[in-house]
């Protein structure tokens, strides 16, 4: 937020006229007299109102035009935040908590109405005291972005940070992440850091952490318990299993998807149960049969080439759009086809063109759940002939990320194809 804290135009002029700023205790004389604290204004508001927090705690908007006078009763003194000294328990394991955005813990200042993220270890421990009994947490802020604003560069930054602590004595690594694109990040890390020796968990919250009903704390506690006790390797995504504050699911980072806009249990493992479950009494139950990483050896490959398109086919899809992709230098197309992995025959020419231009073409299904099987119907067989690679039951999002990763770490299209079809991190 800018210096003006959301105020602009007429409202800002009014504040300047009376030399008052956000946080001041003021008395406004309008048609009546109003006493309260000047609050910040959300950018989406108009420029005609000042926001005042009254003694009752309610915020109201006062029309600037009706203001005759503003008296400042007292100014807010900015007290430096007192951080408590944190005492580590030598018997407990160490966990690294990396913040990338989504507030996993926050504090509400009722005086100003501000919700501030809890970023330091002691802030987090104060918000979720249960963590102190599970592990000693080192907290670091990598960056602070809403996850819808994340780009592949951010994935690489996270991967490089993790790589730097691959040989540390951390028992596990927690990544606080916004939920919108959490599954993209988890997929990238699964490939880029194949065989990573320390379990990594991405954790977030669907309901903002300032509210008492937030799923944040339970997710954090379950994630920490999982890291400390599961003795497993892999990249996992930990969120509520359903609408109860009971079981928490640990999803394999390559098989998970956000399937609801707002529910606590929005994340689901496609086609099977979550890899692990943390019960309400914090027991870890294992569902997966095999190891997360197919090759136990740590093999970091962190390069990425973002020239990949995810194309959701639908009736009426204009094949020219694919031509455009080819012309703008796209190197791979992941199709979200219909049913078992089909696109209409209007697309055949353009698919052939793409294949001749050495683009990698992979097929997934917009049904999301289920396996692509292109030998069953004529359309599928035609497409196979045209050079499309079926990607079995890999989710479209994971396929997209894997394609970006494969392109970045291969010499030619054959290597790309071979990487795409190799089961590296339980993505199939």
């Amino acid at each position, binding site marked *: 937020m800018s210096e003006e804290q959301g105020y602009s135009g007429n409202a800002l002029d009014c504040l300047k006229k009376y030399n008052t700023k956000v946080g001041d205790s003021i008395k406004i004389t309008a048609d009546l007299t109003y006493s309260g604290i000047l609050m910040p204004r959300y950018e989406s*508001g108009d420029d005609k*109102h000042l926001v005042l927090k009254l003694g*009752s*705690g*309610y*915020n*109201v908007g006062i029309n600037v035009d009706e203001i005759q006078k503003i008296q400042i009763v007292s100014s807010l003194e900015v007290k430096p935040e007192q951080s408590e000294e944190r005492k580590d328990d030598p018997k407990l394991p160490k966990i690294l908590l990396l913040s990338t955005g989504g507030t996993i813990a926050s504090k509400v200042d009722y005086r100003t*109405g501000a919700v501030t993220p809890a970023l330091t270890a002691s802030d987090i421990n104060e918000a979720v*005291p249960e963590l102190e009994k599970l592990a000693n947490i080192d907290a670091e802020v990598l960056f602070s972005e809403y996850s819808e604003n994340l780009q592949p560069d951010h994935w690489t930054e996270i991967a490089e940070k993790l790589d730097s602590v691959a040989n540390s004595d951390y028992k596990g690594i927690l990544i606080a992440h916004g939920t919108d694109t959490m599954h993209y990040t988890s997929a990238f890390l699964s490939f880029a850091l194949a065989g990573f020796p320390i379990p990594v968990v991405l954790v977030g919250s669907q309901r903002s952490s300032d*509210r008492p009903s937030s799923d944040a704390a339970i997710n954090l506690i379950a994630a920490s318990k999982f890291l400390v006790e599961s003795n497993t390797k892999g990249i996992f995504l930990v969120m509520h299993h359903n609408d109860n504050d009971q079981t928490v699911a640990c999803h394999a980072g390559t098989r998970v998807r956000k399937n609801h806009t707002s529910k606590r249990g929005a994340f689901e493992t496609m086609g099977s149960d979550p890899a692990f479950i943390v019960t309400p009494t914090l027991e870890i139950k294992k569902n997966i049969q095999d190891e997360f990483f197919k090759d136990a050896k740590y093999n970091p490959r962190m390069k990425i080439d973002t020239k990949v398109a995810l194309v959701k086919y639908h009736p009426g899809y204009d094949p020219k759009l694919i031509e455009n992709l080819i012309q703008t230098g796209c190197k791979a197309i992941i199709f979200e086809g219909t049913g078992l992995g089909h696109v209409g025959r209007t697309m055949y020419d353009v698919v052939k063109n793409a294949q001749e231009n050495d683009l990698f073409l992979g097929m997934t299904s917009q049904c999301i759940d289920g396996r692509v099987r292109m030998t069953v119907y004529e359309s599928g067989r035609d497409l196979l002939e045209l050079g499309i690679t079926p990607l079995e039951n890999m989710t479209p999002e994971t396929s997209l990320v894997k394609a970006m990763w494969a392109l970045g770490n291969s010499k030619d299209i054959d290597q790309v194809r071979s990487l795409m079809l190799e089961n590296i991190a339980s993505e199939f």
Partner: protein
Amino acid sequence: MTEIDFEKIGLKVGLEIHQQLNTNKKLFCKCRPIESDEYTEKFSRSLRTAKSELGELDPAALFEKTKSKKINYYANSQSSCLVEKDEEPPHDLDHNAKKISLLISSMLESKIFSEIHVMRKTVIDGSNTTGFQRTMLISQGGNLKVKEKKIGVQAVCLEEDAAKLLKDEQNERDYSLDRLGVPLVEIALEPVSTKPSEVKEIALTLGRNLRVTGNMKRGIGSIRQDVNISVMNSGVVEVKGVQQLDQLEEIIDYEAKRQHGLILIAEKLKKLSITITKEDIFDITESFKVCDSKIIQNALKSNAKIKAIRIRNFSGMFGFEPYPRIRLGKEIGQQVRFFGIGGVFHSDELPNYGITDSDVDKVRKHLELVDKDGFLIIAGEDPKLDYTINSIIKRIQDAVNGVPAETRAATQDGETVFLRPRPGASRMYPETDIPSIGVTSEEIKIARNKADTTPTWDKAITEIQKKYNLNHQQAEQIFDSEYMELFEKICENKKNSPNFVASILCSSITNLERQGLHTTLLKPEHIIESFELLASDKIPKESLEIIFESIMSGKSGNVLTAMQSTNVSSIDEYKLNEILDKIIQNNMELVKKLEDKAITTLMGIAMKEVRGKASGKIVNELLEQKIKNTIKK
């Protein structure tokens, strides 16, 4: 009732009413506020509070307490969606609810803000799935005319109603989401120096003014009163949940006495010197292992400790009753229950409850007490026991000062019980999911016009009298009752006499309620059906009350069953004549003696026997005829 001079003790009462609006839609989603007993969904949550939010009470203690309860929510998909489940952000504010709020503010001459901000008010008991209540301030100031007085209005707010508590146990709480999100208008009046009866008048007037708009929901629970009560030198006590207007007077009376009683207790305490430190807390678990008291034995079984608190000079202060039922011992007992501990014993009431003279002697010796000292015995598990003891000590210290500010609940018996400590400042912060809501001058103008053209309550009553040919008292009664809408619906078809309908809805049902039967069991469908049957002559007038009685007592679930089980239906003429002939036969002596006048007694006997199956009019006519015929013979 003990007489008390309310003016002398400086009684001040601030009324707050919460009235549900009949928009037939919840405030922030499309759901309809349907109350049902069937729940299609159940889920459980636990609400968390940050330690910093907890106000005056020992933060750690309250944190433990709020943390440990599991909350079970029950929802019916007809009346709840993902918004109520806190699985989806709120939708836009309902436009009708906004309009009605503006109208109410205008009616009360309250100044409407040009921009309204929705706030989150932290509520941690589970009654809101999000852990907060969405509330917004619509207007400030204004006045309400009550008889010749003008009562100041503090504020008019629009907010969402909370979930309904179904069950509250040690470790779990059950709520139903039917009511969560129903729009509520909260009107807070300025505190006035007054008597309990005047407050009832104020509440009645305000309620009536609201109902005249036709926009208020009716029925049990649609309007709830909270009162802020204080006496001279006391803290302000908020009493929540007065459901019925009749209770208001009783509760204010009780609370005034409770508060003044505490002031009288404080006066005595100030003369003694009361200090309680850690040295005054003793562990007496060992010596009480052989105690006969059931409560102590049960506690010991569950690994609890028994502790005693020594309070020097306190003898007699627990049991001192400045007014009937007002004692410090009772206050402490309620505090203790807040922490989930069953009870506490104090020295003024022992020996009793299985604790014998020798037990008391043991304690007195252990605690090194002299005669004028007092003590408390309390059982519980750590660390709950320690928090509770701390709160007891604080309560005693508060008692020296008089009346602590707190939040209490109204009970069905017309008393108040401790609910929770009064939070310092309102825990409110902006509801950022909803942008601020502008109020245009056009909207204010429309509200103002509507307010000016809304008839006063007096006029409305006169209208009802005219329309339905009722007398003033009947019109008042039906308007004030929860059956106004139903009344109008039943009278629509003009087949039943409004007079009769009004008297059944107001008098008969109330009578049955006074006998201890349940009005909640009698649903609108039952009432409508009964009147329809009456209108088509399938049942006589007298049977209505019998059918209602059967349903309200729980004996029948619907009108048909009630009719069958009470044998109510029109009796056929042949049978009726048979019965009446028999009665005359059995009472031949009386008939011969009293002749025509025998009808009075015989009517009594006859109506008892045909109970509801025939109308009194017909029985009377037939009996009269038969008596005449008999005499002739």
